[in-house]
């Protein structure tokens, strides 16, 4: 006996993602999901960004996804933003239900921007939307300029692409022009940002863009 089911396997995840989006919208929060391989500098970028936003009077908060440890949440708190650490305990990605549980435990009043830093991985997180308004993918010169070609789904599905550690350009055999060409070919609509989480170069421009998006959503 055959039972037709036609059910999306990610249906539960997508429903939770819709709940999260509704919660963000209800509180006027711009939510940004940050994805990238381990060590590309996701947390370092966020440290710089939350500091810069704070200078501008903008309150941002961060949900940190890691397999283990609360190191990243502590770094974000040091930078002056509230952080909530999710430990997946072996899981290679966040799913929307985990974010929903985190949001329930956070104070969403007086929050302007919420960053969700995914587990370092360019494969598994692509399938699980979390309800954020934008998904950023981060790469860096030590990883090689062909990264977009090797992880096309991550780069194609992103709503923003960040090349971090540009202070290392010139020290490594990384062709930034080739990297951005591949990004443009895969995803011409995603804005491109070159930043250094060490020197802070490009962070202001990234924050300008985020705040512009935030005011557009509220208009």
């Amino acid at each position, binding site marked *: *006996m*055959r039972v037709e*089911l036609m059910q999306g*396997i990610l249906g539960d995840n997508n429903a939770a993602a819709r709940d999260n989006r509704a919660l963000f919208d209800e509180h006027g929060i711009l939510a940004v999901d940050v994805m990238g391989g381990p060590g590309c500098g996701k947390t370092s970028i966020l440290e710089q960004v939350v500091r810069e936003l704070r200078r501008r009077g903008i309150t941002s908060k961060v949900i940190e996804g890691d397999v283990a440890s609360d190191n990243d949440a502590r770094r974000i708190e040091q930078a002056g933003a509230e952080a909530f650490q999710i430990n997946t305990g072996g899981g*290679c990605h966040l799913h929307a239900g985990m974010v929903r549980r985190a949001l329930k435990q956070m104070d969403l009043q007086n929050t302007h921007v919420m960053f969700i830093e995914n587990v370092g991985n360019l494969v598994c997180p692509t*399938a699980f939307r979390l309800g954020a308004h934008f998904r950023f993918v981060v790469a860096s010169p030590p990883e090689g300029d062909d990264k977009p070609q090797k992880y096309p*789904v991550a780069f194609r599905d992103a709503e923003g692409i960040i090349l971090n550690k540009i202070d290392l350009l010139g020290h490594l055999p990384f062709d930034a022009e080739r990297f951005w060409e591949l990004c443009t*070919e895969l995803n011409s609509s995603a804005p491109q940002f070159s930043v250094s989480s060490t020197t802070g170069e490009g962070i202001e421009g990234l924050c300008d863009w985020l705040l512009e998006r935030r005011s557009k959503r509220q208009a």
Partner: protein
Amino acid sequence: MHEYSIAARVAEIVRAASREHNRRVLSATVAVGPLSMVVPELLYEAWASVTANSELAGAELRIEHVPVRAVCLDCGHETESYTPFVECASCGSLRLKLQSGHELDVLHADLEDAPEDASGDCAAADRHRQ
């Protein structure tokens, strides 16, 4: 390795169907597009693992592979690919409009024909034993 969470969700969906019809699950069929980044071998392994020692033990997982269909924005050629690494088969461009390939759905479950009648089965087993 998101295959475990996917296998667990498939198990939940077919378990619900099994309970509703009160019949054992013989197989579950899922549609998988390459852009879901699911590795079939890992999904089979995950399925065996999440169903072991449960009412779904022994149920087979069947995967129907759905191709990526993409139209080239440079030359208009339509390309089909069964891997996530898709480029235009005609001109090699990566500027593509994707029309399918993200699929991740449970299509159907095949259940045992005879309903599981607990009391009947026990009675039959009892008669056997005597």
